[in-house]
């Protein structure tokens, strides 16, 4: 790669437009290494994690399941005894029902206790049904994103240690990914916003808008000036000048300012907070729509609750996609499980990057607004005194 680039550079050094091309190429490579690289790193780390957890946890035999099986045979025997007893006498339905209900209640309590201790409902003695590739992938993703649903969790001591180490390395990596991707997405979004929504591409609209803006600024400047003159007499001048924000040149010709305005960097255009909020709400709602189509039992409310809880990295784990299908070892279901897992993990990765983007966009404006309010409050308090 390096050599080819250098060769090209040598050959086509003379033409000026090729310099641009070269610059573009260099930027592209840098982009690949910095940003695509980190996406790949996070993806690879997650995949590696899923293999690690699969090998550690997948072969683990659960004593619990043996206990469950034994428990069931014991109860079957007990039932046999009851039936046998009743058969000796007359087989009464009422009597039989009563004794069996007692037994079933006991059985239910035992099963509930087993489930609380981590029984997942299958008869498979190993926990490989839970720790399929997709399950382990989602598990490692929830660890590094600190969501932590807790629908799957490690049982072996090695798995627990691996989880701790994995989290300690993975979390900074994911934060890096978020800040990087958030930055890029914020930039591209600003560009799109400026080009499309504000119609920067067609010059007529932009010109009119710029003229309007400058006129407004001039008016405000005039107001400020009169204010300043008035306040300079009353209180200390140093304090007041601090509170006046810098305003553009007043007496410059309008057309000059317009061209200046048009040439200013696209990156300086602020994106309003409402747009960011709308994006987030829209993302959650669209995700909720998809999930409530996907999962049979979820209402729209449930699905949007799930999306919010996941994207805010709270992750209760009361609702997890594909969770209800656990415990049926059939092929069809397991396929659906895999697809919904993959979809869920993609949704999570994208959503977190999107949220990082929105934070990136909102940060400046929110900070600016807070500062201005603090300044005005201070100003008002000082005036009153």
């Amino acid at each position, binding site marked *: 790669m390096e050599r080819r680039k250098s060769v090209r550079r040598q050959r086509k050094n003379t033409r000026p437009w090729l310099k641009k091309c070269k610059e573009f190429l260099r930027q592209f490579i840098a982009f690949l290494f910095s940003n695509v690289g980190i996406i790949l790193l996070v993806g690879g780390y997650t995949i590696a994690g899923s293999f690690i957890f699969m090998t550690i946890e997948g072969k683990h035999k659960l004593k619990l399941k043996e206990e469950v099986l034994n428990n069931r045979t014991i109860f079957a025997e007990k039932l046999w005894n009851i039936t046998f007893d009743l058969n000796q006498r007359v087989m009464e339905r009422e009597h039989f029902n009563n004794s069996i209900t007692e037994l079933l*209640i006991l059985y239910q309590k035992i099963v509930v206790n087993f489930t609380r201790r981590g029984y997942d*409902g299958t008869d498979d003695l190993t926990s490989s049904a839970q720790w399929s590739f997709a399950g382990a992938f989602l598990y490692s993703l929830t660890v590094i994103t600190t969501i932590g649903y*807790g629908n799957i969790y490690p049982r072996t001591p090695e798995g627990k*240690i691996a989880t701790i180490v994995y989290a300690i390395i993975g979390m900074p990596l994911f934060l890096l990914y978020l800040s990087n991707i958030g930055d890029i997405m914020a930039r591209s979004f600003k560009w799109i916003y400026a080009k499309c929504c504000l119609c920067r591409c067609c010059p007529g609209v932009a010109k009119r808008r710029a003229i309007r803006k400058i006129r407004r600024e001039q008016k405000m400047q005039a107001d400020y000036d009169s204010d300043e003159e008035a306040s300079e007499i009353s209180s200390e001048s140093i304090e007041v000048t601090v509170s006046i924000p810098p305003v553009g040149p007043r007496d410059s010709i309008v057309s000059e300012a317009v061209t200046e305005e048009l040439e200013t960097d696209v990156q300086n255009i602020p994106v309003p907070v409402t747009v960011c909020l709308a994006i987030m709400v829209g993302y959650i709602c669209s995700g909720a729509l998809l999930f409530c189509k996907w999962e049979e039992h979820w209402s729209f409310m449930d699905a949007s609750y799930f999306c919010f809880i996941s994207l805010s990295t709270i*992750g209760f784990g009361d609702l997890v996609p594909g969770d209800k299908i656990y415990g049926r070892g059939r092929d069809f279901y397991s396929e659906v499980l895999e697809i919904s897992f993959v979809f869920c993990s993609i949704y999570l990765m994208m959503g977190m990057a999107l949220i990082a983007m929105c934070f990136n966009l909102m940060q400046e404006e929110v900070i600016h607004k807070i500062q201005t309010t603090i300044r005005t409050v201070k100003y008002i308090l000082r005036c009153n005194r």
Partner: protein
Amino acid sequence: MDTYYRNGSSRSRASSSLSDNDPRAKIKDCCRKVVAFMFTQVGLGALVFGYTLIGAVSFMNLEKKGNNTEPDEIQFHRKKYMVQLYKVALKNNIFDEKNFSIDTDRVLKNYQDKVVEIFKHGYSEYSTSDIWTFPAALMFSLSVITMIGYGNLVPKTNYGKLVAVIYALFGIPLYILFFLNVGDALAGVFRWIYKKLYRCSTQPDEESDLPPKRIIVPSSACVWVMVLYVLAGAGAFWAWEGWEYLDSVYFCATSLCKIGMGDFVPGKNILSPTEGDQTKLVISYVYIFFGLGLVAMCYNLMREEIREKVKNIQEDFNQCLEDTRTRIIACCNKIRGIEDVYY
């Protein structure tokens, strides 16, 4: 808030107008600092604490109204399977133990699947008012705003879910603000202690060293603090909860990383309130609250050091590049020189 600004501004002006040597000015300055500290650090902490309290009360009230449908559901299924069992008993009434046990096993297996499924919906044999006690609700609101999300206790009613979402929307920024602020304050304290210790330990032999040398707390110190905190907490949970030591370490680490799997939660007694006492829950609440503050401190301290290191590495790298470049140029020149001599 208004009082804070008024205080701050008036005091600052007062202190600046007075002469520096005046002891009153010093006292005033000190007072101002204390007030500012109270309003920023303690006030924020109190705000977060109050927010969790409000959350606990509101969640308690909301969720206690909701009723468990799961026990009814389970009862319905129990009746259904009982009928099936009766049929099995009638069918195999000819003392055929083998067939009987096979059929019974099948029925029981189905019943068990049903129970597990209903359990995953959130079955609990206790009523909602038993589950949503005050300490449990407090723990729940803490786990929401800190984004831990254990998930052992979740809102079931629609209103509860809605309120949880809104609560998180306002709580998470508040918590992040608190996190950053406490991180700053604790980092300042830790740095000060470290500096004192460092000076004490190195003063006798390094008198001639440059005084304005910046002391950066090494990240190993932070790591040690964290490890000690986790191990101590793990010891406490090990003693109280009767978990294995590794499990307690795992719990502490995942909680402080905000992962919050929820497979181990202090006070499984939340789900069986008659067994355990709720003070443990409050203590673990305090443990997690402080632990997150410590994490913030370490984050703050380590960020500084890592920045410094990255800068150093970049400088080194640039120097290295420059070195190789000059070397290559020198080499090329030499070769050219040799070629010139040749021809």
